[in-house]
């Protein structure tokens, strides 16, 4: 198992305060894990702080949004020959101590992609009523499309093997990567499993999705999902 090359991909946009702590936690938890931070056009000291902490940093020249940033990390992991990549956000809401749960199924060869879900276990995270409704609606739609029960379609806490990396390095949705990525995964017949994880509330800064925008967000995600079903695939389905 230790012969496998593993890397943590940490997308970060203006997270100069959180990023050092996230790196520290990752190190404490697994000193052998390679780490690459993707600074998504950050205007603050995110990239410098990460570099000072001794990890590799991919600096995007301007902000691409989470999908474009994460894909940069996937491309890096794919091209550098990593066998397994785990993605966790630079804002500190994904707890490194949950890494074994997320990595487990992929490392064991039981899944091509494992997604940390806040809702499988049903404890801990309690979002607001409107957000809960949105989360449930998305989960229902994606489950129906995927013909597989999923509960957390917006979780960015994921582990991927090389098959999944190959797909996402070549084609990754830019706008709502987690939701659309889940559908893509299943369309390409990759094995996806959800594992229960705890997540933390954000400590600094705010989530990119405010309650005010959630209706607009839902409409856009559902449109993207619907169109995505009919979209021509960049990578032929037969290949995977």
């Amino acid at each position, binding site marked *: 198992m230790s012969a496998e090359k593993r890397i943590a991909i940490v997308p970060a946009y203006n997270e100069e305060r959180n990023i050092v702590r996230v790196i520290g936690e990752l190190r404490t938890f697994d000193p052998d894990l390679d780490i690459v931070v993707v600074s998504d056009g950050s205007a603050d000291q995110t990239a410098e702080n990460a570099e000072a902490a001794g990890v590799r940093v*991919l*600096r*995007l*020249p*301007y902000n691409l949004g989470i999908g474009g940033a994460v894909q*940069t990390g996937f*491309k890096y992991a794919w091209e550098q020959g990593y066998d397994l990549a785990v993605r966790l956000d630079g804002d500190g809401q994904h707890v490194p101590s949950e890494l074994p749960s997320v990595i487990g199924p992929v490392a064991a060869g039981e899944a091509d992609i494992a997604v940390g879900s806040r809702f499988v276990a049903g404890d801990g995270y309690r979002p607001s009523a409107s957000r809960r409704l949105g989360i449930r609606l998305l989960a229902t739609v994606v489950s129906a499309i995927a013909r597989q029960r999923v509960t957390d379609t917006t979780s960015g806490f994921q582990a991927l093997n090389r098959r999944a990396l190959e797909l996402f390095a070549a084609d990754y949705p*830019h706008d709502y990567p987690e939701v659309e990525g889940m559908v893509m995964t299943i369309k390409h017949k990759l094995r996806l499993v959800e594992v229960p994880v705890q997540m933390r509330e954000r400590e600094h800064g705010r989530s990119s999705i405010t309650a005010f925008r959630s209706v607009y967000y839902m409409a856009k995600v559902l449109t993207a999902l619907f169109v995505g079903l009919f979209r021509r695939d960049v990578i032929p389905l037969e290949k995977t």
Partner: protein
Amino acid sequence: MIGAQTPLKVSIAATAASLVLLLVVFELIRSRRLRERYALLWILTGVVLVALSAWRGGLNTIAGWLGVRGYPPAVLFAVGLLFVILVLLHYSTVISRLSDQNVILAQRLALLELQLSEDRARDEASVRG
């Protein structure tokens, strides 16, 4: 209204204006400020405008085909609007492609920069070592 014609003066003015548009498009292509692939719609727009302006019975004839009664120039507005929408839609596809290409370039730049700085660090280490 059937058989009515566009007044001669209006026809001359409109034809002249349409020809100027075609000329401007041609000049933009010639001076390489507009690529041929993007100019096609504009050339088509200009040609249609010239045709509708110079063919004095044309507007009324087409209005007759379409069942437009009362105000034949409404056809002109409809055709004009259609072309504007087509050109805008075309721009959306162009912008989409450009932004996709932009993303790929930005990602490649970040990957190459990291590669470069690592290579440099290794070179410096080997020189010292």
